[in-house]
Structures are given as structure tokens and as C-alpha cells.
């Protein structure tokens, strides 16, 4: 005769109602002669009963079930009347929807800006250039423009200096200038 330890799995399968006929016959033979296993079985059954009682499965009233069924049917009817492109989203995995939306938005943005840059590039030059190269060229152009502006500023300063010198030679004009400044301050 097998020792009790060999019946551990059989004992558990028994309390879970999962023994086949042959297994059951052998097990019942053992049970009839072994008080230890009988007690073990009783204790396990009590444990499962305790758990089931502590966490009962809710039963829905027929009214509640009917209400659920109505809601589901209404939703199905509403869906059936939707255009195909709105129905399509029900067949996509829910988790993928945000990712797909983001991908679409990115694609639109990239193609929009890409197109704009492409047009600019077409107008500026006919030789193939990368965007970064174009950026550098544009920066250079800005510096050259600034240098020209500074040069112009220098010329203006020279002119002002020259005028100042001429002014200091005729005092009547200087007084007039001072008066103007005074009236501005007031």
C-alpha cells in the first residue's frame, strides 16, 4: 500500500472535483483505511467553503440581465449604422489606437514641413544640398548682411562726427541744439 505522501496530488484533485473514475476508486480505497487523509480532505473542503462564503459570486437578477442585454443590443445597433471608417476602430486592438494616432499625426507634420522645406530648397538652389548645409549657408548670409549693416553704421558715425566738428566751429547752432535738448527734457 502506498504511503499518504503519495496521495497528495490525488487529495487536492479530489477536493477540486477533478478525479477520473479509476483514480477515484483507488483513492476511496485508501480513504476508507486512512483517518489522516480523511481529516486532511475535510480540512481542505472546509477551507474552500470558507473562502467561497467570504467572497460570494454575485448573482444577477433576471431584470438586471435583461437590462444588460438591452444595452449591449442597443450599442450593437448603433455600431451597425456607423460608416465603415468609424467601424474600423473597433477591430483594431485598443492599446494600439493611441500609438497609431500619434504615428499618423507625426507623419502629417513631417510630410507638411518636409514639403515646405523642399519647396524652399527648390527656389534657393538647384544643386543638391542637405538641410544642415542649407542652414549653414543661411547663417552665413545673415553674418554678411550684419557686416554690411555695421559698415553702414560706421559711415553714419563718421558723418555725425564730421557734422559735430563743423557745429563746434559755429556757436550759434550749438546753442540752438542745447535749447532743443532742454525742451525735450521738460
Amino acid at each position, binding site marked *: 500500500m502506498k504511503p499518504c505522501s503519495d496521495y497528495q*496530488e490525488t487529495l*487536492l*484533485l479530489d477536493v*477540486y472535483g*477533478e478525479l477520473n473514475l479509476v483514480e477515484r476508486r483507488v483513492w476511496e480505497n485508501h480513504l476508507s483505511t486512512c483517518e489522516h487523509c480523511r481529516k486532511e480532505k475535510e*480540512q*481542505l473542503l*472546509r*477551507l*474552500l467553503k*470558507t*473562502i*467561497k*462564503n*467570504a*467572497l*460570494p*459570486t*454575485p*448573482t*444577477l437578477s433576471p431584470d438586471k*440581465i435583461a437590462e*444588460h*442585454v438591452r*444595452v*449591449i*443590443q442597443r*450599442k*450593437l445597433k448603433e*455600431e451597425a449604422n456607423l460608416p465603415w471608417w468609424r467601424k474600423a476602430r*473597433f*477591430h483594431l486592438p*485598443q*492599446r494600439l489606437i493611441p500609438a497609431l494616432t500619434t504615428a499618423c499625426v507625426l507623419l502629417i507634420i513631417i510630410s507638411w514641413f518636409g514639403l515646405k522645406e523642399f519647396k524652399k530648397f527648390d527656389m534657393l538652389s538647384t544643386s543638391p544640398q542637405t538641410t544642415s548645409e542649407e542652414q549653414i549657408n543661411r547663417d552665413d548670409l545673415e553674418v554678411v548682411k550684419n557686416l554690411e549693416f555695421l559698415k553702414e553704421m560706421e559711415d553714419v558715425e563718421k558723418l555725425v562726427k564730421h557734422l559735430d566738428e563743423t557745429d563746434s566751429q559755429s556757436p550759434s547752432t550749438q546753442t540752438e541744439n542745447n535749447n532743443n535738448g532742454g525742451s525735450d527734457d521738460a
Partner: protein
Amino acid sequence: MEAETEEKSVSILNDEEMVTRAKADDQKAVTELIHRYQPKAYAIAFHLCSEESDEVRDVTQEAFLKAIRSIKKFRGQASFSTWFYRIVVNTCRDFLRRKRKKERLFSLWPGKPHGNEVSQDNSKEQPDLKGHNDPMAVFTGKQLTREVRNALRALPEKQRVVFQFKVLNEMTIKEIAQVTGSSEGTIKSHLFRATHSLRNVLKDWSES
């Protein structure tokens, strides 16, 4: 009279025949399938993802909508029940994922209570305790519910899910294996480990 006879005839059809009719857009068959599986779907969602009745209702409805939308893709390799329970389980998973994400977001918000804490103690909703007049029995019942719930929560997720399917949803080991896509041996192993742990933790309650 004729309609009534037809309705009766639909309800005696087995799942396979009903699915064939539902695939051909027979609304009566669809309705009967929902009627037939509503209690079980509700019970699975209740134990697996939420004990808030509104949430359970929403998850169950979503699972039915998914199943009916894709019923034409059901090829009958597994039984309809297995196929459908798998949809319920996946819908629960998606629901929990969304819920956890929301809770994480709210936990960053100062002063807001953590969503999970609110829904964790539902002992007041236990229907089996409502009929008791004895305050001591009510207290003991509530305490027991809390202890059992905590003991289940302390289990590794796979063990807990298998145990719940078996004990609370009364599914067979074969069904659980098909629904979860695991072998029967794996399911037995999870179930036995869970039983062993629960027996240790709940010793005081089950030994008398």
C-alpha cells in the same frame, strides 16, 4: 405565437448551433448567447478585475461587444465558452491597465486620494452578510472577508487568477488551461501552490 415558438427553439440550441446562427447575423441567436453567458462573464469580471458593480457591468458589456463584433472570426477550434472567457479575461486586463494608469496619474496630483484605496475595502457590499442580525456575526463575517481577500492578494498573480477561476468561478482545470493558454500541469501546479499558501494563512479560520 410563431415568434414565441421560435424563441423557445433558439434557447434549446447548443452553443455551436447558436454561434453558426449568430455568424449569419441572426439577432435572436446573438441575444440568446448574451443571456446564456452574462452571469458567468459577470462573475469572472467581478473576481478578476473589480468589485464595483458599474465597472463590472462595463467590462462585461465591452467583452460581449468585442465577441459579437468578431464572432465571424471564431473558427470553433476551442469551444465558444473558452473563446469567450478569453475575451473576458483580456478585457479585464485592458481595464486594469487603464485603471492603474489613471491611478498613477492621480497619485501625482496632490491631495487626491489613491483610487485603489477607495475600491479595496468592499466588505460592506458583501451580499451574504446583509441578512445577519447578530452584530458579532456581521463583524466576524467582515473580518473573514477582509482576511480572505488579503490572503488572495498576497498570492503571486498567476496563482491567484487560477485559484479564483477554479474556486470562485467553478471552472475546470482543462477550461482554465484553455482560457489562459497554459498546460494543465502548469495550472495544477499554480492551483496546488495557492491552496497550500492559503491553507497556511487562513489556518485559524478553516481549522475548527
